[in-house]
């Protein structure tokens, strides 16, 4: 047996070193995979940390879109998208939804302002526990193309506590480094602000792929187009009520259901699916996939929606992700934000249950 022939000590040292080298190589590979060797690389945790640095610590709240209200209702499909997607949600019929209207930003006590980006997040509950979650905002294009640019924008546009405004030099430097963001902001500024949550169009922004029953993929973007008539935002909104947008929304839902049309915009070959800063041409085919009806509103404090993360990659069979780098990043970041906030003690929402009148 080999164990009986004593190798010379030198060769034993060499073989010991070989063991160390092999194990060391595996450890280095693992450290690299875990990102420990590239501390400068942006990670999901790092992006959520940036939100906390910019907005301050608000335990228990979403790290972005911290201020909001929970809603529920139904989605009734027209069946018109069923040829392009095999998703059950697009077959004719009705499914229950829950959702959330929110203001962009990580401050749960921010005062409502027509200039602040508004959002609508929806979870469609399909048969057998299948779900579709989507989070849409009131901008026609997204200001940044990549998660790294998103982090840079957050930092550049953060409010300087001394002046109460973002540092103009930092904003300029960001826009100079990101011409796609400068172009997107021009498109965004051209959009007229609506008066409230109920007459806002909410854009999904990122591209996805619809998958038909034969397996054919079609690029798509979607938006929720209000059936409530457009009213421009007042130039001088009534001062005093920091929740005036949410209070108006509550009053409207209490008067009667609010409706949006789910519009699918079908991409053509060459339309960018990996760049949310660029709108697709206006003549692209649009499909009226169905009507979203919101008939119930609730404070985040009393709603189970509080513990739902509107991860855009919770998709039903029949919709898949695209090559848009923001989608995977959003999925990763929402997960980190969810894990942090549900592990923290909850604080009361700025829109309390007493704001709702049953």
């Amino acid at each position, binding site marked *: 047996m080999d164990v009986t022939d004593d190798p010379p000590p030198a060769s034993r040292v060499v073989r010991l070193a070989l063991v160390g080298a092999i194990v060391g190589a595996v450890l280095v590979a693992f450290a690299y995979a875990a990102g420990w060797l590239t501390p400068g690389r942006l990670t999901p945790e790092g992006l959520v940390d940036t939100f906390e640095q910019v907005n301050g610590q608000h335990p228990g709240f979403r790290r972005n879109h911290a201020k909001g209200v929970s809603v529920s209702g139904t989605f009734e499909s027209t069946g018109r998208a069923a040829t392009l997607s095999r998703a059950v949600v697009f077959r004719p019929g009705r499914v229950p939804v829950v959702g959330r209207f929110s203001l962009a930003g990580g401050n749960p006590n921010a005062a409502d302002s027509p200039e602040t980006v508004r959002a609508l997040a929806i979870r469609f509950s399909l048969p057998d526990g299948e779900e579709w979650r989507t989070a849409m905002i009131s901008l026609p294009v997204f200001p940044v193309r990549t*998660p790294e640019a998103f982090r840079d924008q957050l930092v550049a546009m953060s409010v300087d506590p001394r002046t109460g405004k973002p540092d103009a030099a930092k904003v300029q430097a960001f826009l100079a480094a990101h011409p796609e963001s400068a172009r997107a902001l021009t498109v965004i500024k051209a959009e007229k602000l609506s008066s409230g949550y109920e007459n806002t169009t909410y854009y999904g922004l990122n591209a996805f792929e619809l998958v038909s029953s034969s397996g054919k993929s079609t690029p798509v973007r979607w938006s929720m187009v209000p059936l409530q008539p457009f009213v421009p935002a007042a130039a001088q909104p009534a001062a005093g009520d920091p929740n005036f947008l949410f209070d108006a929304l509550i009053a409207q839902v209490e008067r009667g259901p609010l409706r949006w049309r789910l519009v699918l915009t079908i991409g053509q070959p060459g339309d960018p699916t990996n760049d949310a800063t660029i709108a697709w041409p206006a003549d692209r085919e649009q499909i009226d996939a169905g009507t979203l009806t919101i008939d119930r509103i609730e404070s985040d404090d009393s709603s189970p929606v509080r513990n739902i993360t509107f991860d855009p990659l919770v998709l039903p069979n029949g919709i898949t992700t695209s090559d848009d780098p923001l989608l995977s990043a959003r999925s990763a970041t929402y997960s980190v934000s969810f894990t942090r906030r549900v592990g923290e003690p909850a604080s009361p929402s700025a829109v309390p249950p007493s704001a709702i009148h049953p």
Partner: protein
Amino acid sequence: MSQTTPSIRQFAWSSRILHWLMAVMVLAMLFIGAAMVASLADYHLLLSIHRPLGITILGLVVVRFVNRQLTTLPPFPPTMSSSERRVAEWSERLMYGLMFSVPLIGWAMLSAARFPIVLYGPIRLPPILPVNAALYTVLRGAHTVLAYLFFVTVIAHFTAVLFHTLVIRDRLLERMVPWRAGPTAQPAPAPRDPA
């Protein structure tokens, strides 16, 4: 076993196949898990491998556990001291425990957060726990801690086998190689060709 037949040196063929199959899967899983939580661009791709691979490992460890009860183990080589044997036995139990618990906790934590557990296309796993955010928090933490413990255990196991094979040169590894160990690998007394 009669005294005249050579003692079993290798693990049963089923054990060896399961060992190497799961070794590749578990190591890949540990790398994917660590990379996934640190990645923005590849998070979704890695997660879409992580979930079906995790449930495959959970299924295979059940098969492996049954196989472990039904097969006879080769004896430890004489080069292993009694304390080293105890460590080996306990590390085996620990690794079985982790192969069961890490994927099961992953499934349970997604259940507690009511996160749809899509494996592939229309294939989804049902929730195994009621919705409970506090439970999610505990399980999410446990999933990470136990996965890193698993990596440390795998590395310790790997290092020990390499040390035996390359430094002590007692052919410990040949007990587990997928092919049939050569006749010279038979321990003393004199090897006897079973054919």
